[in-house]
């Protein structure tokens, strides 16, 4: 967060730089089952973010000492492609990727029935192909759909979305410029019944604004949830019609 940037007005007459209203999401596209080697997969675009998630498992744990006798362990690897950002990134994980991997895993784990699969691992891999603020939320959304696609038993789909603050106003789903020069960023992840599985925040919010931001992000998650759900239903219809044609 670099505080307010004096040169740019982010909101004019209730409309943001990219034409959105303060409570509007960027366009979202979700495709299910895009990879053939993985057990489950999902491609997602959220604005200019492009991510692909794969799930492998439950499968044998390597190295073996990590296995747990009474449940599956869950691993989550968030990784950015070198070409995903403006300035080329050195390949491989940095401290930020490790942190995002950890909190993303913890966002998903509460709904996964790990006790069904003792001594195994469920591996979730998220590759960010293009980044434009909100890659962790896009990654969690894609991973959640990929888990369902892999046939993993889960209590519900996890949905993730951020709220931010620019020009002193709380906005939904900040894009790059708003994230870079905005006053706050607050991503959450949530179950369909409203429990929060991830919350982070940095920047500057009053307690009122904080509540506003959480509420706005929650409403955004509700909309994304419908798109996730529809993508899975559509995937089945595609398989159905492909079968009918053949």
């Amino acid at each position: 967060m670099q505080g307010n940037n004096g040169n740019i007005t982010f909101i004019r007459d209730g409309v943001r730089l990219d034409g959105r209203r303060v409570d509007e999401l960027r366009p979202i596209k979700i495709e299910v089952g895009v990879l053939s080697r993985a057990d489950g997969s999902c491609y997602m675009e959220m604005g200019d973010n492009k991510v692909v998630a794969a799930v492998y498992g439950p499968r044998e744990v390597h190295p073996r000492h990590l296995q747990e006798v009474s449940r599956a362990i869950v691993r989550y690897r968030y990784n950015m492609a070198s070409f995903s950002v403006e300035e080329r990134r050195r390949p491989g994980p940095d401290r930020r990727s490790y942190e995002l991997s950890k909190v993303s895993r913890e966002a998903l784990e509460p709904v996964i029935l790990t006790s069904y699969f003792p001594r195994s691992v469920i591996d979730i891999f998220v590759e960010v192909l293009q980044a434009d603020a909100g890659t962790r939320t896009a990654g969690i959304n894609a991973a959640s759909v990929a888990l369902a696609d892999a046939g993993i038993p889960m209590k519900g789909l996890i949905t993730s979305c951020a709220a931010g603050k620019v020009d002193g106003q709380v906005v939904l789903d900040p894009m790059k410029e708003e994230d870079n020069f905005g006053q706050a960023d607050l991503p959450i992840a949530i179950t369909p019944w409203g429990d929060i599985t991830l919350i982070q925040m940095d920047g500057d919010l009053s307690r009122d604004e904080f509540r506003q931001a959480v509420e706005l992000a929650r409403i955004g998650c509700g909309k994304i949830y419908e798109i996730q759900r529809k993508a899975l239903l559509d995937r089945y219809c595609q398989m159905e019609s492909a079968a009918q044609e053949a």
Partner: protein
Amino acid sequence: MDHMERRVVVPGDVLSEESKRAGEGTYVKDEKVYALLYGIANFREKINVIPLAGKYIPVAGDNVLGTIKDITFSNWIVDINSPYDGLLHISEYPRKIEADDMSKYLRIGSSVMARVKEVDSTMKVELTLNDRRLGQIKTGRVIEISHTRVPRLIGKGGSMISMLKKELCCNIFVGQNGRIWINGSEEDMDLALKTIQLIEKEAHTNGLTDRVVEYIKTEKGGRQGCHISG
């Protein structure tokens, strides 16, 4: 054909307000029944969700097709297309053999039709070959489909599989783990392979058996009965 309701559901979808209707692939919270899996929910007295994908989890009594992947002092380690390997103890081989000779009977890469004898709470899976229908496979072909499609391949009361064996003139062994062994003439196996792939692809559609019968008829063309291999 019964007209039960069936529809696609995703994990977390509410399926019923009556907790007593909770079946497989569901869970109950606050008296309501929810889907636990992405799949097809069948609404009968009980509501079951049949997943569209997922790994095979062994259950005692299942027939499975495995490949030997390692040999230890007294066990063959068997890949059974599951997160859990099967253990085939030397004493479960149909006849008495010495530990030193294990690789003479089953070596790495050998295929076996086995039965799951026991699964404990830590998912240690013990297999047996002690049944005259079980044992090593040396001829024919093995194909792999999603284990979630196996019930459809077997059909109600085994109707689909008996039809296939008869019409395709092949010996067919269906492993619950989604591996299927077929044995017959090359020509018959080619058709069997294509037919099983068709069933896998269309497992979730209505009127499947009729379409499969029709398919086999068309593919066979003028060919009558079973192919006699020289």
